[in-house]
């Protein structure tokens, strides 16, 4: 038995402890984060799975908890991600400006996340939401960009405040902050407004189009471990809100008879599709591997939105499964890139190459992660995408379906690039000496994650079973699953069979590769090009700019959202400058003029 309250308080206290330990010894402080987050994960997962979590509160004021399958699902996933990523902390903590603070904020944001998933009170939900924003906010600037933090703040606050607005509207309708009863009490226009506001919150947290600007900036520029946490963990807060907004609240607007879908569902699905396409196209362009993965995260957020808004049993379970699959895959990928960056100090594809020679395990982890992201069997990403495709086609959303397929192919295109650029190709001279495999404790989480990715792809039924509980809870028909089969609307999937076929295929290919090996390794200098001898060890591989012609097609449109917000910001700045210039002079005349005008307005009625 374990009390949620105690777990949260424990996490927060461990955070404070890690701060003081970190003041004494930086690395020791971050070791505390590992121990604490592992402990939290284990206790949440174990007691949660066995329904032994106690939700009563004794210490915390105003906060009440409840255990729902939805919350538990997300909590286990996100605590797992936090626990895995925490293994990286000791290796990176040296580089941060405030290492002790880093450890503390890391654990505090974990505490906040737990609070979000377990509270049954909207006010506490908002409180924890803000708490997570603020604790994670100060983690971001320890990385490369200071601006990323303010744009993260801006968008997530827009989300939080939309949430708050919705909360207050629901409170007016129901007189309570309780999540279940206040959501049940809204109807009609109010429900539509609430649902739209919650959707805004979900969009902001997920970084979906058009609230997407912060996500690539934050993921691309945070410290490496934090990028992983954001992509795998914190971004999923958005998915949590999306479930509340899109699944638990009824859709609104004009209902199309043929498909039974409402206008709001079309709009959100369209935005989700745009997110997918936009994220994919942007990811294809990136040079920085972390940025690339950032855009990939964004496009995967689009999948989750599309899936959740359709709200059929296949789509919701597909969406939730995608949450798991993407969390695992992108965390693994970010960790792999982080490992590379720890060894070489860069994540730019143009500055890297041939890391496979020194970091084979990292390479393998990354490979597995991107296979899952691209939705290729036998990884977890395949299962979720299979379910989502079915739901989309079933509902006749042709354009969305096109986007979804495009995203899938596109993701294969882009995730392959870092693979080729970072790991394959020629080894670069500047990294040749320093490169070695990542330390053991960094490999541990990566390997665990890869194992899970394969497991989710081969035997999805364990997770789908849990997701079915969630589905029942939020009022969607559960998915039909056998012991080794998944039944969709258009057919039955046998992941284990597919996996074994794939396994055999890969095995054969591997044997052929080993037995019939024709290639020979030569040094960089040991070659010539077009009759010229090479005198310097320069890079000769062509894994950059694979898709230059494609990029040229949409080059002009890549910055629409960024430009929009830039322009919005400039408008605010202009307004401010204008006001300053206009009102704040050293002459009394403006003030007097306005006094006269205001008096005139008030008196006008009397004259007439």
């Amino acid at each position, binding site marked *: 038995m374990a009390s949620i309250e105690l777990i949260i308080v424990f996490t927060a206290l461990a955070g404070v402890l890690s701060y003081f330990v970190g003041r004494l010894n930086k690395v020791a402080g971050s070791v505390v984060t590992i121990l604490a987050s592992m402990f939290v994960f284990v206790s949440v997962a174990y007691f949660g799975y066995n329904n032994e979590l106690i939700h009563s509160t004794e210490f915390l004021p105003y906060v009440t908890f409840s255990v729902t399958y939805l919350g538990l699902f997300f909590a286990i996933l996100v605590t797992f991600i936090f626990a895995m990523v925490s293994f990286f902390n000791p290796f990176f903590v040296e580089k941060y400006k405030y290492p002790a603070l880093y450890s503390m904020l890391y654990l505090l944001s974990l505490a906040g996340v737990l609070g979000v998933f377990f509270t049954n009170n909207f006010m506490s939900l908002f409180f924890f939401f803000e708490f997570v924003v603020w604790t994670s906010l100060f983690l971001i600037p320890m990385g490369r960009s200071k601006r990323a933090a303010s744009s993260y703040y801006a968008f997530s606050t827009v989300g939080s405040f939309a949430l708050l607005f919705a909360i207050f509207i629901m409170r007016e309708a129901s007189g309570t902050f309780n999540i279940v009863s206040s959501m049940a009490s809204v109807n009609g226009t109010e429900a539509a407004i609430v649902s739209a506001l919650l959707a805004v919150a979900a969009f902001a947290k997920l970084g979906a189009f058009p609230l997407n600007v912060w996500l690539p900036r934050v993921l691309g520029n945070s410290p490496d471990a934090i990028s992983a946490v954001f992509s795998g963990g914190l971004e999923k807060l958005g998915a949590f809100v999306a479930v509340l907004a899109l699944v638990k609240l009824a859709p609104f607007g004009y209902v199309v008879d043929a498909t039974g879908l409402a206008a709001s569902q079309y709009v959100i699905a369209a935005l989700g599709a745009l997110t997918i396409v936009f994220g994919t196209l942007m990811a294809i362009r990136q040079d920085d591997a972390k940025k690339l993965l950032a855009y990939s995260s964004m496009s995967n957020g689009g999948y989750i939105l599309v899936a959740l808004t359709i709200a059929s049993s296949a789509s919701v379970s597909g969406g939730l499964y995608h949450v798991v699959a993407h969390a695992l895959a992108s965390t693994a990928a970010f960790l792999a890139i982080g490992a590379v960056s720890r060894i070489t100090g860069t994540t730019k594809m143009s500055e890297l190459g041939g890391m496979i020679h020194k970091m084979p395990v990292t390479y393998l982890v990354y490979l597995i992660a991107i296979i899952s992201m691209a939705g290729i069997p036998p990884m977890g990403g395949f299962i979720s995408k299979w379910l989502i495709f079915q739901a989309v086609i079933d509902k006749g959303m042709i354009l969305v379906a096109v986007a979804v397929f495009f995203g899938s192919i596109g993701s294969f295109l882009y995730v392959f690039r870092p693979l080729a650029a970072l790991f394959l190709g020629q080894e670069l001279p500047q990294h040749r000496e320093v490169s070695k495999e990542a330390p053991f404790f960094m490999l541990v989480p990566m390997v665990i994650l890869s194992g899970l990715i394969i497991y989710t792809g081969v035997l999805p039924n364990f997770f789908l079973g849990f997701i079915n509980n969630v589905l029942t809870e939020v009022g969607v028909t559960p998915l039909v699953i056998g012991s080794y089969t998944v039944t969709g609307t258009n057919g039955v999937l046998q992941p284990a069979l597919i996996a074994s076929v794939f396994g055999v295929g890969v095995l054969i290919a591997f044997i052929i590769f080993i037995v019939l090996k024709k290639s020979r390794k030569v040094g960089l200098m040991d070659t010539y090009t077009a009759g010229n001898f090479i005198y310097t060890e320069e890079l000769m591989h062509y894994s950059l700019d694979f898709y230059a012609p494609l990029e040229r097609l949409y080059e002009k449109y890549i910055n629409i959202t960024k430009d929009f917000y830039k322009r919005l910001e400039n408008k605010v700045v202009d307004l401010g400058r204008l006001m300053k210039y206009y009102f704040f002079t*050293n*002459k*009394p*005349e403006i003030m007097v003029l306005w*006094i*006269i005008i205001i008096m005139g307005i008030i008196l006008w009625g009397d004259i007439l």
Partner: protein
Amino acid sequence: MLQYVAIVLIMLGLYGLLTQRNIIKIIVSLNILEIGVNLFIVSVGFVDGGLAPIFTSTYNSSVDFSFVDPLPQALVLTAIVIGVGTTALGLALAKNIYQKYGTFEIDEMGEE
């Protein structure tokens, strides 16, 4: 009549503040505004044919007379003294400004 004139004076004071960019002129405008306000205050307490609110021996013999309202007059006394305080301070500041910028014209001082 004087009440209207008081309002016109207040407005002229505002007009001065609206158009003048000379420190001294601004203080002059403020003074006009204040005089207008003072006249207005007194006018509010004025009673046609009323007596100044001071008991004298004449008052005893002619009880029919009424006094004008003494309270606004007392307030005006306060307002006048406060006005002179403000004006003195404004002029001292004007002197300081002149020492700093060498002019009374706000337009010639440049933006800070």
